[in-house]
């Protein structure tokens, strides 16, 4: 139900979902099917969310290809790769429920590649014990998005696309709605809802070189943090070993792990297959953090290519094989770089890929510590610990997307709509409007300064000096970010949007850097040259909260794993 006031359009719903990627859409479906009125918001057009860029597949222990696979092995792989700071219950739920979610997606109309027996095909991926990734060529994400979009469109789910949420609204301690700006009309919206689910994805765009698309500016992290939610494991940022380096416009764009899976080798500028030195046994197919650090070390040692990468070479496999197995990579390099990968080597370098940390949630319902607020997908934390397995993110969005829809729809049955505080709404609208129609600091330049500093100082191998430098940049940008200004009006003003995004970007960046300083060890994706060893005393999570005017950090014990699960996982080695 919507009605207009002079300043904004008001819309009432039971469950408000912010973000329409895989997690948000899956949540919308389950909340609706449980009988709730559902509204889903998307910063971009419907069906364009970052999920479309996922390539490899969904990890689910169907055991269609390797009959020995089971949820227990998937669970163990996930815990081990998370370097023992994952929430065991989330890993358990993921491993147990992913197969059901995949089959359900098939029943929604998704078409997975098949085995000769006609079942869903599964492929090998780094650090998975068995062949486990259900896939649709190298376009698995597109298939998920399109399938879920279809389900949304054929249900009575309200959606508003190109709508950017700037603030969560609270009634006392609980979240009861949100304020947002509809970008394509320039109108303000106030949503009154009994529950809010945040599924806004990651924050890769706070780095200069990233595989993440435009939306990934940590919006949900900022909204939740400001509303009093706990964040966790923010220091854990995954670098993918192979992103494109050239041309500049696509620097950071993902080059799928599948290239190495199909036999691609890494070479430095001297033609040496350097992985022989870093990982003589597993070579190019070792875990992502190891291969990424090797690529980085070669580039730093001056053995990189002219555009600052290393070579990835699959030419020895011949044109027919390459075009059949890696069609989209073939097209990607030909279209963007003018490189024919059947004849020439690719240039690649590590690229920021995924945020393991995020909003702390209850594994069963995805509820946060703030009543009425739920979170799922990349913006939530706990499942991946210090490192994420390839394919576990697509499983994550389906399993915990559904759980957040169930959790929120069940929560709303017991609560009445909250009271929307008009003065808070007016103040928020004023704050947004204040960026427009004036000369001020260029918001894009502020964002660029942040991204440059993050890529330079909070890279794949970190140290105290560089981290302090980044922290100073962040502190220095905070005040200017409130003085950004853009000409024009409220409608489709991307400069305004960038100005609004800055606060969440700075929150995400600050958490990452403060956590990275605090964690004086090297664990998973977090590598410190000044603390190169893993420290058993730091097998804990870092919790981040907003306290007064500054960010508070607190070490917290990892939930104790029950014995029957513990025996499935190899002992941690120090």
């Amino acid at each position, binding site marked *: 139900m919507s009605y207009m006031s002079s300043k904004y359009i008001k819309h009432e719903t039971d469950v408000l979902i912010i973000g329409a990627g895989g997690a948000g859409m899956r949540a919308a479906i389950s909340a609706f099917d449980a009988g709730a009125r559902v509204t889903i918001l998307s910063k*971009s*057009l*419907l*069906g*364009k969310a*970052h999920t*479309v*860029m996922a390539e490899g597949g969904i990890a689910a222990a169907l055991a269609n290809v390797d009959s020995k696979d089971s949820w227990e092995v998937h669970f163990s792989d996930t815990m081990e790769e998370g370097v023992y700071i994952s929430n065991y219950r989330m890993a358990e739920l993921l491993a147990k429920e992913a197969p059901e979610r995949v*089959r359900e997606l*098939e*029943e*929604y*109309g998704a*078409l997975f*590649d*098949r085995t000769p*027996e*006609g*079942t*869903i095909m599964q492929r090998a991926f780094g650090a998975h014990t068995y062949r486990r990734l259900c896939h*649709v*060529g190298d*376009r698995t994400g*597109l*298939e998920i998005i*399109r399938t879920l979009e*279809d*389900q949304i*469109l054929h249900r009575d789910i309200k*959606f508003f*696309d190109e709508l950017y949420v700037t603030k969560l609204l609270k009634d006392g301690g609980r979240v009861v709605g949100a304020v947002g700006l509809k970008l*394509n009309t320039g109108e303000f919206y106030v949503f009154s809802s009994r529950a809010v689910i945040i599924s806004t994805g990651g924050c890769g765009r706070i780095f200069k070189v990233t595989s993440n*698309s*435009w939306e990934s500016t940590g919006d949900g992290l900022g909204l939740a943090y400001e509303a009093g939610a706990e964040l966790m494991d923010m220091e854990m940022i995954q670098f993918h070993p192979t992103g494109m380096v*050239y*041309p*500049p*416009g*696509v620097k950071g*764009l993902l080059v799928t792990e599948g290239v190495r899976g199909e036999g691609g080798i890494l070479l430095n500028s001297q033609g040496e297959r350097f992985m022989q030195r870093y990982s003589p046994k597993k070579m190019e197919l070792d875990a992502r953090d190891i291969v990424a650090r090797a690529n980085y070390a070669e580039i730093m040692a001056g053995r990189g290519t002219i555009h600052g990468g290393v070579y990835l070479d699959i030419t020895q496999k011949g044109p027919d094989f390459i075009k059949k197995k890696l069609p989209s990579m073939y097209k*990607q390099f030909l*279209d*963007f*770089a*003018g490189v024919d990968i059947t004849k020439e080597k690719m240039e690649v370098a590590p690229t920021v890929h995924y945020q393991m940390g995020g909003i702390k949630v209850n594994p069963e319902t995805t509820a946060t510590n703030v009543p009425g607020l739920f979170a799922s997908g990349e913006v939530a934390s706990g499942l991946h610990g210090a490192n994420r397995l390839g394919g576990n993110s697509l499983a994550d969005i389906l399993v915990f997307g559904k759980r957040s829809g169930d959790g929120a729809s069940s929560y709303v049955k017991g609560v009445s709509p909250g009271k929307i505080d008009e003065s808070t709404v007016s103040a928020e609208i004023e704050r947004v409007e204040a960026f427009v129609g004036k000369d001020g600091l*260029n*918001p*894009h*330049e502020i964002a*660029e300064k942040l991204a440059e500093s993050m890529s330079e100082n909070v890279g794949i191998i970190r140290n105290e000096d560089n981290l302090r430098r980044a922290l100073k940049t962040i502190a220095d940008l905070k005040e200017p970010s409130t003085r950004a200004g*853009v*000409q*024009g*009006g409220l*409608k*489709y*003003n*991307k*400069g305004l949007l*960038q100005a609004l995004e800055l606060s969440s970007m700075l929150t995400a960046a600050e958490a990452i850097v403060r956590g990275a300083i605090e964690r004086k060890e090297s664990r998973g994706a977090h590598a410190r040259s000044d603390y190169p060893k893993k420290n058993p005393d730091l097998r804990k999570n870092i919790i981040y909260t907003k306290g007064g005017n500054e960010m508070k950090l607190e070490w917290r014990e990892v939930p104790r794993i029950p014995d029957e699960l513990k025996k499935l996982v190899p002992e941690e080695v120090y």
Partner: protein
Amino acid sequence: METVRLSVYRHDPSVEREGKYVDYDVPKEEGMVVLDAMKYIEKHIDPNISLRWNCSAGKCGSCSAEINHRPALMCKTRVDSLKEGKITVSPIAAYPLIKDVVTDVSENWALLKRIPKFTPKEGLEKPWKMSQVDIERSKEFKKCIECFLCQNVCHVIREHDTDYFGPRHVVKAASLDMHPLDALDRSEFMNRDAGLGYCNITKCCTEVCPEEIHITDNAIIPEKERAVNAQYDPLAMLIRSRRNRSGRK
């Protein structure tokens, strides 16, 4: 420094009656695509320019525009692939303008809602089995990234006021109809309600598809043929007439 000149259509229909082309000079970089140049304008010259893009990698279909008056994705059009002289960038013409080069494509969601959704056959044994060969036809259509360039070049949509849904939506229907376990036939709906008959297979849509889907040959023509077969199949005609008599649709 070598520069490239872009002539970009600027128009806010809520404020101005007419739009105009504004020239911008952007430093040229090796391997630059049109979207890079547009982003440069947005970042360094006029942050108020309206520009829609997401993945900048040809995977999301957000940055559709007309480049030198030909429909294309900005992220996949290399500046050095265009002929010398300035590059014009204008919005795709088949949709209402929001501002500058951004258009309102929302009517497509309303059309997609009307296409009957995937409906599995009854009594299938679980887990479902399908062979790879049988899914290939549908998979071609599932490559669609909804950039709507095919809609933009379709002369039925551009020049005539009909109820034709357009090529994207025929591709959608075909992707469902050719799903090996789908129970429906949408060709009759496409013919009766979605104006498929208006398409006179000029193949303009196929030419602009960035995913190289054979829209006309593999989606539109088979859907048309099925609709015609159902229409003139004597057995189908008999069944229809009986159904109509018994009051069912």
